[in-house]
């Protein structure tokens, strides 16, 4: 299967600081990919590199087999909804659609009109007068009607109330079902991604901590609790650990089964899994996706 995003040792430096470093990724096509991490972890930097709004300082990145923003054909294949759902405040909804039609060779006007109608947006209304949820839906409509192969969204629901958030994600998922679109969306909230993503990338302090299929990640991570123990078998990779005098609690990643009867083995939800990677642990090696 072809990769939608392939990065090799990708890095980006702002002045003295690495915003993204040693990033190696193979994101398969046809997925809805969640990119999670705290604010300032490098999510926006990675997305900007993928759409070609920035050039890497180190390594390389290919998107749908081409160099980001390398020509009109590449630009037509990748849609980008940047942070805060950018629209032109002075232009009307209808003018946004006309602009989309002019700028995008594969523009699907029927899809755009149908979505705008269904959302109840008046073509005459100025974008500046719309609510946050409506503006986000307008930006999403432009992204979908462009008919890209890959749609990238940076924190698309961060500023929305719960209802607008749900409606936005419904619209996005419908587009995925209808147009067999690959999607990458970032969020600092795992709860936004739990229902929508089938592939997850956790980015902390400019590094990819873990990346892989969500069901695989859930099946291979376990929480172990039991009497204090300071070392674990080789095949059990420690993600996080905490100890009292008598008790140890580990989050481990392993493909094998946990045989030691001293442990009480628990399953992790996606949120706990991500949090385990966000908790600082000394000298943790970067993991690549397992397939």
């Amino acid at each position, binding site marked *: 299967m072809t990769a939608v995003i392939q990065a090799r040792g990708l890095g980006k430096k702002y002045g003295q600081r690495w915003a993204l470093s040693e990033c190696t990724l193979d994101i398969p096509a*046809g997925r809805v990919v969640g990119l999670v991490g705290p604010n300032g972890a490098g999510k926006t930097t990675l997305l900007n590199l993928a759409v070609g709004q920035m050039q890497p300082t180190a390594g390389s990145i290919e998107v749908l087999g081409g160099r980001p923003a390398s020509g009109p054909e590449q630009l037509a294949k990748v849609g980008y909804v940047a942070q805060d759902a950018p629209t032109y405040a002075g232009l009307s909804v209808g003018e946004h659609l006309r602009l989309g039609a002019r700028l995008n060779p594969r523009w699907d006007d029927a899809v755009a009109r149908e979505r705008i109608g269904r959302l109840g947006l008046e073509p005459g209304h100025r974008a500046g007068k719309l609510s946050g949820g409506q503006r986000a839906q307008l930006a999403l409509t432009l992204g979908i009607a462009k008919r890209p192969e890959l749609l990238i969204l940076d924190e698309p629901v961060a500023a929305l109330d719960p209802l607008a958030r749900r409606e936005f994600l419904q619209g996005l*998922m419908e587009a995925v*079902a209808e147009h067999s679109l690959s999607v990458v969306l970032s969020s600092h909230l795992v709860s936004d991604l739990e229902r929508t993503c089938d592939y997850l990338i956790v980015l902390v302090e400019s590094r990819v901590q873990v990346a892989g299929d969500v069901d695989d990640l859930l099946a291979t991570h376990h929480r172990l609790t039991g009497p204090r123990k300071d070392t674990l078998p080789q095949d059990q990779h420690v993600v996080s650990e905490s100890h009292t005098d008598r008790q140890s609690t580990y989050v481990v990643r392993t493909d094998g089964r946990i045989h030691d009867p001293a442990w009480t083995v628990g399953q992790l*939800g996606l949120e706990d899994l991500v949090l385990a990677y966000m908790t600082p642990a000394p000298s943790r090696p970067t993991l690549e996706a397992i397939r």
Partner: protein
Amino acid sequence: MEVPVIEFHLDTGSGVSPYMQLVRQVRHALRLDLLRVGEQLPTVKDVVARLAINPNTVLKAYRELERDGLVAPRPGVGTFVTRTLADESLTAHGPLRTDLERWLAKARLAGLDDESIEALFMTTFRSAREEDIA
């Protein structure tokens, strides 16, 4: 187009993966005879629009049900029930329930509270199942 017979819901805090929740809800509906042979499951697009979930999750659930021989896709139309789980076992539910109610009354008489009853049932259930496997 037919109106779907069942609607799915998701319990996010349950720790059960979304695709498995869908599989269980279909199996449950089949067992209770809410879904019958020849009837249509909600289309992928309907489920996606209703629950705001990933279409791959729905496809994965439907593929698993298909592997179990419970449903079959008709290309371009949808996914239809091919086998039920209700069968004869449904008629046995009544008498079994009566037995269980009698047992519950006995447990209460012996002074067990709800939590103890549940714990006793679950440990017995688990150890019986482990014996079956072994």
